[in-house]
């Protein structure tokens, strides 16, 4: 899909872990996911992988490359192009006691599976009075790159609205691995959202085994003037903007990575805003009713008396994504838009 041939060629080198200056192992986001899947499949024979083209093709973002050769067709199952059906099959298998990790190629196609995710997986535990559960893990990817109107969207705000579902959108290899392992071991349905443009990002990941609880946001950078809030690729963008704001404008940004979108913990954000008195949210969704709307609404609810300026929101322009690269660049917020929004919040 979005991965180019060049990208594929460089996979080999990606696979080599690098050791950073402090002697800590750095691996890619993609590799972190592969480690999590390999470890959980090794630990529990009831963990199986399902999805379109995850086998011979290796996954459209090559996350499961080589897995079918290693684990066989029984545990790494290529599915037909049946998003609704395969999501239901994975959910039913989870009800019946195995641990399917389903890959929905991109979050755009998850709209076809929405009924299974929202009206089935998310409701099993509560609707049946807690007599059983459906611990299905659904991996999918947001992202863009001249992919056109139907392949460039991100819908985390919709899933984060649904009681019963856990939704994570990690931005670092460390979180990606720790969250995925917890999701596979957990008792609830989890929507695990990756991002096609960060699979090659590197970050420190311990060699020892670990898991991370599916809760809470993280302060990625401490600051005093304004709180920058984002998640997934947006969190990386925000950190880049924060650096430039520090260097070019002497503005100190505190950057918070939401990480877990449901349950949505805004306490960390609120604490930060009580300190900085200003906040800007950065996201790739269309701004109206993106996740930023909820975060902004909660900040004004819980830190009303501390706010010195309206909570700012930076999102995509509200148009279906155009293919032309110059227009696409206008639609998706970049570092400049974030910097402008921060300067405005401080004006």
């Amino acid at each position, binding site marked *: 899909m979005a991965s180019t041939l060049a990208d594929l060629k460089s996979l080999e080198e990606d696979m080599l872990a690098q050791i950073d200056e402090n002697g800590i192992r750095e691996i890619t986001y993609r590799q972190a996911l592969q480690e999590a899947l390999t470890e959980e499949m090794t630990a529990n024979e009831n963990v199986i992988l399902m999805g379109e083209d995850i086998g011979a093709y290796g996954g459209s973002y090559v996350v499961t490359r080589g897995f079918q050769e290693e684990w066989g067709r029984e545990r790494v199952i290529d599915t037909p192009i049946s998003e609704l059906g395969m999501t239901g099959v994975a959910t039913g298998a989870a009800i019946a006691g195995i641990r399917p990790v389903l890959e929905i190629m991109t979050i755009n196609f998850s709209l076809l599976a929405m009924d299974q995710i929202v009206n089935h997986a998310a409701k099993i535990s509560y609707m*049946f009075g807690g007599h059983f559960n459906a611990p299905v893990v659904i991996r999918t990817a947001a992202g863009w790159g001249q992919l056109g109107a139907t392949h460039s969207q991100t819908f985390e705000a919709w899933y984060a609205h649904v*009681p019963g579902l856990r939704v994570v959108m990690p931005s670092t290899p460390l979180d990606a691995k720790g969250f995925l392992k917890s999701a596979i071991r957990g008792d609830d349905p989890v929507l695990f959202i990756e991002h096609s443009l960060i699979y090659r990002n590197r970050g420190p990941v311990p060699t020892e085994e670990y898991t991370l609880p599916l809760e809470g946001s993280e302060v990625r950078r401490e600051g005093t003037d304004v709180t920058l809030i984002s998640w997934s690729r947006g969190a990386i963008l925000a950190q880049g903007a924060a650096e430039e704001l520090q260097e070019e404008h002497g503005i100190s940004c505190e950057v918070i990575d939401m990480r877990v979108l449901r349950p949505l913990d805004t306490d960390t954000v609120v604490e930060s805003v009580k300190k900085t008195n200003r906040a800007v949210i950065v996201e790739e969704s269309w701004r109206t009713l993106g996740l930023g709307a909820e975060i902004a609404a909660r900040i004004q609810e819980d830190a009303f008396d501390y706010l010195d300026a309206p909570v700012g929101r930076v999102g995509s322009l509200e148009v279906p994504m155009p293919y032309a690269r110059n227009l696409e660049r206008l639609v998706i917020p970049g570092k400049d838009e974030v910097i402008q929004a921060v300067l405005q919040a401080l004006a």
Partner: protein
Amino acid sequence: MDTGQLLDFYRQMYLIRRFEERAAEQYAYGKIGGFLHLYIGEEAVAVGAIAAMTEKDHLFTHYRDHGYALAIGADPNAAMAELFGKETGTTSGRGGSMHMIHPERNFWGGYAIVGGHIPLAVGAGLAIKHKKEDAVSVAIFGDGATNNGAFHEAANMASLWKLPVVFLCENNRYGMGTAVEYASAVPQMLTKAQGHGIEGEIVDGQDVLAMYAVMQRAVEHCKSGKGPYFIEAMTYRFRGHSMADPESYRDREEVERFRQNDPIPLFKQQLLDAEKASAEDFERIEAEVEEVVEEAVRFADESDFPPPSTIYDWVYFSDGEVGKEPERG
């Protein structure tokens, strides 16, 4: 088959019938709310089919589920209490009429999105195959559900992966108020299954023994690794789709004609003619059932509603009873 089992088939069908007649009455009294989809007229399908299933098998059905819940062994008291929305119900009043369960027998519900549970049943079939269990997964659905993509996607996967899944379609000639001929291009739903390379047969759903026999063949087929099997049971719903149905879409004579084909008196006469049982046997059974149903209504009525304090229980299974209120109410 021994007389005991034959009479038990009768008892089960009669129990389902009376249970639902009483439920309809309680609905009229306002004790039951929302939807109430009666199975009256179709009892032989559930009773015959469930009788051919073992403890290991899995079951998923649609919202017209009272018959399956009772046939597979759910406590009539708990079932009626569920209709009343009481804490003593099968799902503690959370699910209601459309979402009955009996986990002890792997009966996972009771689903209200037409076709939505069919992939779930296929998923259980995948789990059975993965764990190499000697079991089948059964999906119950109506004629209308076969027009939904969920059925086709699931049928293709079940057939492709040769999963032990029995697709049991209750063709009762209508999907809500729409007759099969206005909803399906092919008159028999089996044809659609064959489009995915699935074997199967069409049977008389008013004949409990025929249902038992076909289900045995289906289970045998699946367990021998031949892949899924599709049963199309021809039946008819004597009552409206749900309590609110004006039945403007079918005329009285049609309903009357099909009522002549009531599986319960038919089977009773069959047993009497074959001298397998006496009038007294039936009187005894019917009297017992009356008591069971009477008790169920009393139990449901006297049970308490779920405590408000439990409203957040099980939103996340991992939170369990502690039922944490989400950070936002």
